[in-house]
Structures are given as C-alpha cells and as structure tokens.
C-alpha cells in the first residue's frame, strides 16, 4: 500500500494528489500488518526495522549460537505474548513460509519514490499490487508476531533410555525427553499439515532427560529438525531410531514466544524458584527494544549492571498490621536481582524517614545518600498520597544535584502514560509493562554509552558518543531538540501538518459518514532524524509527548535509518489536561471507564514513523469528538492519514537533509585547534615560535599579572596563525590545517565585512553592505540551506565565516545550547556538526561542558521559586539561599593527553562555560562554551543566537 506515485521532483502543491494518496490508503481495504500487535487494552507498539538493520540483526544472530529472533517485533507487553503463546504456537509451522513473503513485500514497499513512478492509477486499480501480498498475509497473522529459531545440542544415549511411568511416548520421550501429545496440536485454527504428519510441539519435558538438562528447550517449542533432518510426528520415531549409539544430536526448534521470557515461566528456572513473588516477574523482562538499542540481551546487560546498585520501588506507607504477608508494603519493585536486594532490604529506612522527617522538619523528604560498600547511592523520594516511589541510583551516574529532575521526569512520564502513579503501579497486569519501562529507564541512565556504541548502526552517525552527563542534561531540559529549516521548507511542512490536523476531508470529516468523528486532532509534531522540525502542539503537550519518545528511545532510532515503520498507539494523560479533571485520578482506568462522563475527554497518542520521519499526534476523544468507550485500539483511518502525511513529507526530505549537512551555523571551533598538537607544534615552531608555543598560556599569565594585560588580550597575539574557523567547511579533521605563516591573513576589508556582518545579524539593518550582496543584508545564521543555493561557493564560504556568535577576529565558540522555555525547544549544534569537529580534546570538552551545565542548571533551578500550578508537580527545591541566580560561569583548563615532552610543561587551553537564565522578554536558558581569549558578554551571544530562532 505504499507504492504510491509521488512526483519525486519538485514539491507538488496539488492537493488533489494528496487526496488521492489518502484515498488509496483508505479504500485499499488492506489489513495493516501491525494489527496483530494490538494489545487487549488497545495499546500498540509496533516497530519494524529497516531492511539493512534486519540483515545486520540476522547476521549477528548467526554468530550468536542461533538463539535470536529474525524479526525484531515486539510489543509493549511481553507477558501477554507469553500467555498467548499456546494459541500462537499452533501455527508455528506455517510461520516458516512467511519470511519470504514478507521480505518480498517489504522490498516492493521500500522502493524510493523516484522508482515508484508506476502511477497512482495502477495503485487505484489495486490489481497486482505488491501491497495485496500484505493483505493476504494479514489473514495469517497469528504466526507473525515473534518467531525464533534455535538450535539445541543434546547428548543422547540409546542404551540408557529414560524409563517412563506410563510407557508411552516412544523414543521421542524416552530418548530425548520431549513429550508430544498428538491430539493437542490439532486445533480449529490449525489446518492440519498434509500427508507429512503433524508438527511436533513440545507439550512437556521428561524429568532428568537430556532435553530438560540443557534448559534451552521450552514447552511450546516446535521441533523442526534433528541433525538437519526435518521431522514430523510421522517421521520422528524413524529418525530417532537411526541413532546408533551415544552421540550428540542437534535439534532445531521454533519458538513462537520470546525465548527468555518463557524460560522462567515455563521451565521454572532457578530465578522463579528463588524469589517466590505474588506474580511471575522473577525473570528480567525481555525487552527486544533494549536488545535492539544496546545490541545485547537484557540478561547480559543486567549482568553487567549487576554490581551497580539501583532500584525502583513503589511502597505503601499504610501498613495493614493484621495481614502478616511478608513484603506486603512493596507494591512494585524493579529489578529483582542482586543489584537491588540490599536497597530493598532497607526499605524500612525509607519508609521511616519519609514519615518521620515530615513531623520533624515539616518538609517532605526528597533524597538521601547511602554508602553501599564502596558505592555511594543517592535515593530519591516521591510521595503521592499514602504511597511512596523510591528510586535509588549510583552517585557516579546521577549526581545528587540532578536526582530530583531525573525523578520528576520519571514520574511525569508515568503520569502521562498511566494517569497517576497509583494507576501505574497498582494494577497487577501493569507489572510486566513497568518492568519494561524501568529496564529501559535504568539502561539509559546507567549505560548511556553502550546505547551509542553497542548498536550495529550506531544511532547517531557521529563517532562522538553522547556522554552520561550530556544525555542527563539534554534529556533533563524541559525542551526538545529543534532543527530550524529554511523558511520555504518549513512553510511546506507546516502546511502539510495543518492540512492533516484540520481533518476536514475524506473519512476524517464528519460529513463523510454523517457521524461524529471519533477523535479530534489536538495537534501534532514532526521529527526528522530525531530533531523536532515542526510543532503544532502546546508546550506542555509537546513535553509530554517528548517524554514518551525519549523514554522509548524513539528519537535516536529514527536517526540512523533503523526504523522501517513504527506505529504507536496508546491512551495518554497529558499532564496539564488531566490536572483539570483531577477527581478521577487515582482510580484504575478499568474501574474508571464506566464513570467517564461524556464531557470528560480522553486523550490518545499516535506516533507513526517511516524511516527518518516521525510524527506524533495527540488526539482527543470526548469533547467535540465522540466519547471513547472501553479501550479503543488504533484506528486505521487515522494511522493511514498520518502515513499519507509522512509520505507526502518525504518529498521534502532532501531539503531537510541539506540543512542537516550544511556546515554548522553559527560557526563552531574545535578545541584542538587552540592547542598546538605535538605534530603541529614543529611546523609552527619554525614560523613563529613565540606565538605558537602557547598564546593562551601567555594570555593567562597576563590575566594573572594585572589589568593592563588583562583578559582582553585578543589582539595581543598579532602573529597568531590564521583563523581556524575557516577550516570548518572543508577540512574538518586534520587539526590546524592551514599554514600558519606568511600572508594567509585575510585581507582586512573582508574581515571587517565579516565582522560587521555578524553584528548585523544581531538586528541592525544594512550593515552587510560592505559585501555588496543584497541577499545578505540580514543574514540569518539558521537559513543557510537557502543561501547556499544562491551564493557561489566562494561567497558562501565568506558567509560561513561571518556567521559566528563571538566577537573578535577568530571564532572562539566551541559549543552552545539555547533553551526556549516558552516553546519548549532547545537548539544545539547537530550531531553532524559535532562529528565534523573531531579531535582528541574536543569530545572531552563537550563532556565537560555538559557536566558543568548540570551544575549550572541545578543552580538555576534551585534558585527559582516554585512556579504556579506546576510547582506542586515539579517540586522545585528550596531557594538556594543566595537568591535567584541569573548567570553562572566556570573557567576550565585543559591539557593535551599523553604529553611526552619532559622538558616543557604541557600547553594549556582555558575556556569558559557560561550559563545564563533570561526571564525577560521570554524565559530562556543559554549555555555556551568558548575560548578564554575574548571576553564575551553572554547576553549578547544569547541574543544573537536566539535571533536566528524563528519558529
């Protein structure tokens, strides 16, 4: 259903075209492939990888003892898959035939738009559409969900058969230890295979048999082959009887449920036995998403985190003294492993402190610090009613300064997803979802680097790994990473989104069926490769949506062509909307459903991703649209509309990509350029020994000596090498690439022009006249994409030079983050910009920058009084005592690593990291990192940067 012809050339403005796309999607009457993954409660999380990704996964699977999945498809709720396993295995055999079909379908579907010129008329005819393959396939959907093929080697000895109590079962039971009941597999949904006999489903395992000893064969598996000989019920006895003596045989089995998930449940493995829990959650939940992102098994990851104490617990403060059940106060706990056992053991401490400190000091406890052996662990508390959420994290991952904001982030995510903490934790069937939730949560916090290193196609194309404090800082900002687009592309994107949101055409319009529409679209936002490019949602809603996306790592996924197709549907409880209907909170949704009065709206989040694009749509049921009853599942019409929108937008991808690959604007410098590297030093030494050795050092010394030398000594170093900024566009990687010596200094007029121009971007008109290019009269640093087309290459280069935020001749800006609190967005150099500035010091500098930003932002937060209605939700800490902090800066010094020269001291470079909070005219937070040589006035920097931020 995707092979729709779109004019791949210029963007088509013809709305009728798109209507036809929509109508194709709508009338094609196909059953979508995600339909099987819809949960009982209507939720859907369907992720299909791109082809390249799957090939990698398969390749890895082969190297991985064959125990892995071919398709990474998973649902939000593993436990349900397990419970449905019985039903699914029936069609296990049939599933075998499917991959080919699917592959074909996908291949056909994924043709580039340019190749899809087949024409929409054909598509409408629908005759021999590749999409129809999908359709027929949809009929056989039971087997699609998860299919694992695994090979198990067992040692068998025909001379020593296991004696069986009832004597039945033949060699299959006595030799291998597998029990198969012939009639059980014959269900109504299972069209018995032809004359070749039936599938050999494992219905039981014989104690002490070879099969059970390995622990890899599970009840519900289907035995496909023995030593590569395909077997059925008819042939198995014959095949087994051919085994002459003690030997090792290789069994090929198919599992239709996730392997690990089933392990403890079906085989009753040691973890389940060791920790008798009210619900079967003893095993770590298999999260295929985790595996996908970290490239490893959950179990392995858990092992590597086993020594790091961390825990999430939801405790009840009201204890029923009469019920003597142990651990009854623990409503929820994750993980159930050694990592958390000690912290779980002292939960009494948390409960007592929570209760007592309120009486003693009159405030709620927010955190406490514990020493576990050598680990310092910070514990955060969140009290809601008579329940307490406790989160323990090691200090090295989350500094105490930032614990509260991490905690409030989790709480808000849970509130958005489930309405309230109580409804999240207190429903028994939420437990596996929460396991999944916290598994992801801890992975992201404790092993952020593995997230980026481990994956096959690292999510960010940058070699630079976002560091721990970096992800902590950026994820903690109440804002989304924004990519500003050239205006015409932006306009088109906005138009397409608005068209979609108006929902006044086709089946979305009320006239069509003469019915009230099901959902009203409140707004949507669009991501391209993980950057927000358009947003039509109010800020709070955007943040809610973004919290969800961040939590499930959807943004990095979209970046590296990892997503083929993504469909997420779930009910959400946007924070500020649900606060208006507070009375209903705390009631589990199941009970609340009956009580939902018509005027009370419910909200649904729909996320559809196609390759690099991802659109999040927030919809409202009730209110203007018809009220939602029960737990409605995803609505095909809406999903198809979003898909159509995305397909429409794909045409614009070229423009977006161009913006993304355009050189960084504002210009950035690489830290290494300011530090003479060992190799470069020799070259420089010959030309101008005095200045090249370390201009910075002398400057620093000057600053220490007195005011005359001062910090303002930029022009003191006349003989400085040519400005490093110019190298950015052409030669990113090789240090100071240009000859420092004679005659490179650009002619003064050009410099002056550039200088003036950069000031011009600060808002003064007409200052660009020196360059005599009318277009550049008011250059906006963020609209380079368009400028690049117009200007010649030479001129463009000049432009790049001029677009810098710092004053002075050289560009001294290393990094920046600007957060616009009103819009809920932030801008920072793109990952690609950062990748271009490779070097040895620079990544370190970025890490340092982010770590420092944590502190700066914490200082800002602490000094702010709690604001308005959100004060209660965010629970900002007390004012610091120093009063509101407006600006905070730290000067750092760095030295090159591995300095070998014994005689000379290592050269040093100093740079500032400055944060500033502006409350007027619009609340902004601004973090910048620049070289020490120019005394910048951060306000001015901030102003220049925000000027380019047109929304």
């Amino acid at each position: 259903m995707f092979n729709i012809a779109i004019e791949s050339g210029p963007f088509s403005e013809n709305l009728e075209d798109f209507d036809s796309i929509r109508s194709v999607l709508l009338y094609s009457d196909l059953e979508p492939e995600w339909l099987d993954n819809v949960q009982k409660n209507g939720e859907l999380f369907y992720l299909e990888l791109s082809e390249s990704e799957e090939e990698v996964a398969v390749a890895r699977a082969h190297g991985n003892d064959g125990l892995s999945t071919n398709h990474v498809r998973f649902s939000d709720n593993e436990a349900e898959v397990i419970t449905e396993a019985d039903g699914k295995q029936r069609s296990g055999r049939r599933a075998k035939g499917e991959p080919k079909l699917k592959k074909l379908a996908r291949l056909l579907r994924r043709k580039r738009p340019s190749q899809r010129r087949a024409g929409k008329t054909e598509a409408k005819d629908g005759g021999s559409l590749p999409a129809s393959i999908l359709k027929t396939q949809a009929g056989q959907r039971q087997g699609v969900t998860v299919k694992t093929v695994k090979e198990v080697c067992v040692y068998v000895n025909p001379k020593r058969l296991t004696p069986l109590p009832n004597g039945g079962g033949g060699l299959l039971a006595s030799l291998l230890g597998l029990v198969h009941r012939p009639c059980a597999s014959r269900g109504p949904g299972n069209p018995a295979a032809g004359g070749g006999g039936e599938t050999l489903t494992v219905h039981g395992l014989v104690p002490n048999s070879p099969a059970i000893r390995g622990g890899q064969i599970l009840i519900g598996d289907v035995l496909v082959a023995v030593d590569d000989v395909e077997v059925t019920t008819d042939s198995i006895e014959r095949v087994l009887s051919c085994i002459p003596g003690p030997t090792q045989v290789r069994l090929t089995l198919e599992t239709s449920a996730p392997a690990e998930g089933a392990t403890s449940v079906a085989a009753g493995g040691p973890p389940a036995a060791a920790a008798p829990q009210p619900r079967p959650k003893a095993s770590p939940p298999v999260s295929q998403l985790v595996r996908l992102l970290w490239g490893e098994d959950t179990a392995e990851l858990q092992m590597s985190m086993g020594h790091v104490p961390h825990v999430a617990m939801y405790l009840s403060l009201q204890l029923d003294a009469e019920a003597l059940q142990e651990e009854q106060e623990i409503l929820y706990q994750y993980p159930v492993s050694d990592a958390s056992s000690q912290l779980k053991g002292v939960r009494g401490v948390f409960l007592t402190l929570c209760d007592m400190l309120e009486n003693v000091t009159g405030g709620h406890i927010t955190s406490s610090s514990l020493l576990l052996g050598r680990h310092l662990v910070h514990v955060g508390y969140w009290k809601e009613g008579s329940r307490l959420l406790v989160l323990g994290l090691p200090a090295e991952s989350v500094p105490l300064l930032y614990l509260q904001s991490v905690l409030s982030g989790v709480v808000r995510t849970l509130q958005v997803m489930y309405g309230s903490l109580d409804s999240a934790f207190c429903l028994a069937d939420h437990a596996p979802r929460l396991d999944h939730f916290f598994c992801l949560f801890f992975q992201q916090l404790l092993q952020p680097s593995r997230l980026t290193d481990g994956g096959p196609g690292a999510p960010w194309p940058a070699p630079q790994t976002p560091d721990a404090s970096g992800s902590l800082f950026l994820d903690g900002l109440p804002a989304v990473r924004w990519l500003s687009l050239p205006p015409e592309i932006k306009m088109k994107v906005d138009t397409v989104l608005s068209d979609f949101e108006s929902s006044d055409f086709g089946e979305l319009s009320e006239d069509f069926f003469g019915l009230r529409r099901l959902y009203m679209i409140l707004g949507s936002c669009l991501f391209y490769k993980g950057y927000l490019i358009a947003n039509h949602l109010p800020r709070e809603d955007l943040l809610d949506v973004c919290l969800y996306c961040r939590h499930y790592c959807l943004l990095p996924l979209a970046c590296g062509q990892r997503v083929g197709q993504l469909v997420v549907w779930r009910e959400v409880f946007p924070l500020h909307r649900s606060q208006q209907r507070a009375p209903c909170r705390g009631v589990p949704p199941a009970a609340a459903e009956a009580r939902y009065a018509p005027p009370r709206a419910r909200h649904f989040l729909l996320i559809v991703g196609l390759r690099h694009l991802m659109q999040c749509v927030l919809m409202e049921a009730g209110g203007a649209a018809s009220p939602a009853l029960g737990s409605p599942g995803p609505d095909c019409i809406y999903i198809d509309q979003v898909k159509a929108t995305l397909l429409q937008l794909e045409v614009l991808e070229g423009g977006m990509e161009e913006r993304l690959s355009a050189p960084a604007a504002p210009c950035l410098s690489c830290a290494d350029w300011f530090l003479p590297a060992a190799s470069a030093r020799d070259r420089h030494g010959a030309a101008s020994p005095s200045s090249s050795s370390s201009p910075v050092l002398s400057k620093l010394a000057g600053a220490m000596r007195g005011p005359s030398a001062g910090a303002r000594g930029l022009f003191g170093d006349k003989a400085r090498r040519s400005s490093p900024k110019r190298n950015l566009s052409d030669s990113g990687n090789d240090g100071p690439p240009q000859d420092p010596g004679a005659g490179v200094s650009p002619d003064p007029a050009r410099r002056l022009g550039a200088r003036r121009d950069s000031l011009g971007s600060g808002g003064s008109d007409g200052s660009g006249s020196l360059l005599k290019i009318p277009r550049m009269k008011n250059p906006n640093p963020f609209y380079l994409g368009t400028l690049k087309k117009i200007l010649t290459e030479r001129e463009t280069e000049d432009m790049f030079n001029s677009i810098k935020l710092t004053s002075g001749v050289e560009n001294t800006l290393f990094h920046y983050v600007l957060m616009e609190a009103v819009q809920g967005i932030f801008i920072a150099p793109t990952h690609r910009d950062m990748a271009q500035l490779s070097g040895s010091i620079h990544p370190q500098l970025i890490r340092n920058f982010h770590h420092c930003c944590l502190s700066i932002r914490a200082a800002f937060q602490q000094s702010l009084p709690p604001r308005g209605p959100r004060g209660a939700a965010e629970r900002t800490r007390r004012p610091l005592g120093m009063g509101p902090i407006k600006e905070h800066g730290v000067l750092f010094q760095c030295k090159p690593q591995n300095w070998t020269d014994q005689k000379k001291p290592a050269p040093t470079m100093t740079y500032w990291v400055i944060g500033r909070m502006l409350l007027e005219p619009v609340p902004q937070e601004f973090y910048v990192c620049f070289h020490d040589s120019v005394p910048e006035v951060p306000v001015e920097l901030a102003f220049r940067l925000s000027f380019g931020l047109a929304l």
Partner: protein
Amino acid sequence: MMLQDGSTQVLCLTANSGVPLFTRGASKQLPFSVIGSLNGVHMFGDGQGVVLSSCQTDCGGRVVWRVFHDSVMLIAVNGGHGSTGVIQGHVKGEELFLERLLENIWNCMVLVLGRDELTNMRNVERLKKDLRSCFGLIDQLLEDRHQGIMGNLTHCADCLLPPNPALVQEAVNGFTQSVDSEFGCLVVHGRVAAATENWWRLAPQEVILLSALMRMLSSSGSASCDYPVFLPQGSPTVAHRLLRFQLLPGADVCVLCGPTPSLQKAQSDLVRQFWSPLVETLRDCLAVGERCLPGTVSLRVPDVLALLVLNREARRSVSCVRPSADDSPTLPSKARCWELLRLFYIFAATRYFSQEEAPVPGALAEEKAHSRSSASGDFVAGFPHQPLQCYLVTEECKCYGLQTQQHQLFLLTPLSVPTFALRNVATQTLLAVTADTGF
C-alpha cells in the same frame, strides 16, 4: 513540626546501644521517640550493609549521620526554612556545613575528654556528666556566635595579618621557648595573628578547635587559665596543658606545654618579660580589627563586598566583609555578606574546587572513605577538565571564585561591578592580599 525553622540540633548517642548522651542546639529538644528512630534507622541500615549518611527535605531540612570510632554516633538535624521561608540561616542547612560541624564536635569531645574515655565506655552515666564540660565549646560551634569566623567551615585557620608581623612573630617564638614549648600562638579578635612553626604543623582541625577554645576562654573574661587538652589527631590519649594569658582585651597568647612551668610563674615572670615592650604593637594589631588585613594592603574598596582568601598548603585563611565604610542601603548588610560568603564558599567548594584536606594520619579507613564521598564532592570528580575560576550573578551581589596552585579566593562584589571586570578585580585582589603580606 518539632524543629523550629532554621534551627539545628545535634544528637549524640552511643553507637552500639543507642543510649542518648546529650542533645544540643534548638530551644526545644526533640522527643525521645524521634531521637530513637533517627538512630534506629541508621542502625538498621548498618546491619544490612547500608550506611546512611544524609538526607534532605524539599524545604531545606537536612539530617546527617556520622559514627566515630564505632563508639559515638552524632546526628545533626536541621529544620530547614519550613513554610515561613526565612532567608537567613541557610548555611546551616548545607550538607558540607553539617558534616564539618559533626567532625568538629567529635574533635571537641576528644579535645576535652580524650579518646580513650569516649571509645571505652564503661560507665555511660559518668560519661554523660563528663561531656557537660564540652557543651560550651559545642554550643559555640553550633551557634556561630562569632560572625567573622570561617574556619569551622573551611577547616583553614582564621588569621589576622598584623601590620608588623616580624616583631610579633619574634615575641611569640621567644615566649614559647621560655616555657619549654614549641607550640605557641597569639590570638587577636579570635583570629591567629602569629604562631610558632610547630603550631602550624598541628592538624588544621586542631588549630581550628584550639582557636575556638581560645575564643571561648577569652570571652569568659578571665586574665589567664590553665586548661588540659587532648589533641584529637596529635595526642588523643595524652593531655597537654593549654596556658592562656590575656595581654590586652581582645588579644590573648597561648602555649601548649608539659607539666612545667606553673601558670603562676609564667604569668608573673614570662608574660611581662616578653609582652610588655610590645603593647603598642599589640594595639596596632587590635586596630586592624575585623578587616584582618593591615592598612598597607590596598583593595579596590568600592568593588569588594567581602573576600575570603585561603592558603591551600598552609591551611590558613583571611576573610573580611565590607572593608569600605559606606553604608549604602542597596548593599546587603554585613551579616548577610558573611552568610553569602559562606554560601558561595560551599557552592564553589562542593562543585568545582576540590577540597583536598591534609591527610590525617591515624584516621580510620572508613572515615577516609566517608570524607571522600561526602557532600557532593563526587561531583567535582566528574569534570574531565580542571575548573579554575567561577562566578555567579545573583540579585544581591556578584561572586567570583578563583583558585591557583597555592590559593583560593572567594570574592563578593556589588552588582555595580560589570561582569566582565570581575576577573580583573579578583586577580588584583588576590595579588594585593598575597603579594605584600606573604600570606
């Protein structure tokens, strides 16, 4: 709410049995049940291999636990600003402050009673009685009666730089030798004006504590006294004599010595012999007053609201507030300046400037581990590059912190100083303070 806003209470219990030994601070003592559960929480965790070290509440309340030598448990509870949101008294809610406070209190108990008495508790009732003799000193540490004293927090001895250091130094050396001692010190306005070389070799915590003791003794008004002290690090089990003589009101000299000479003899002969020729010099020292810096040090007075200079190696500090006489109402009051200076010190020290303490020999391994992990000190370790300077702009003033190999400077300036000039003001100030005085 059982604890008043901003008040701090220190609880002392025996570590193994949980018998309360004393409670200081705050007018209303916490009920016994609360004391019991505060202790019980820690003990329970300890049994599970989890050592509770601190916790905080959303309105600034804080509790810090610390066990010393497996025998004494000290708990500091701060009430926070509660609902009233008082601005003052924030320093006492800071973790660093409370941690240092507990350490100081423990050292003070050792100073007065000796370590053996505290670690081998045979008779708890008697110990309770004996501990009463520490209360004066503990109360002084708790209440921070002396506004300008930063040493309790910084663990660097507060100094006063006399106008003519050589003369004073000579007198202190001579006087100390005459009583057969190597440890002697002149205290002016509660700050060390001069001391023998060996006095500076004492652990910084001891110097701080002895200074505090001197302040307490001199405020009692007696002309001289003979006070037995144990040195918490240097000689925790053998007592020395601390002889103190008042030279002028506000100027005291003290020596640590053995059994001889008697107080009588020293006072009648030696004090007169060494100090009577120096009365004018001492008056000059007293005239320096709260400024702590001699007149020769020229500060850019209107630009300096308060300053604190630490000598990192010698563990000494000089601090002063509002050196200028102008009383413009737009500037924060003197008391507020001290508070801000402390807050800024805590801010910078816990986030950026490592506070490497002189390694204390004989400290238990666990205590070393504790001090390493204390406060948010772990945050400093997270920086790949070394922080050198930092500044803050708040609504009341601007703060600038700067560290060099040898010194740390914490400076408060009025808002009128432009931000880009802060760095120059700071470097000049540091230079002015250190260059002439050799501090």
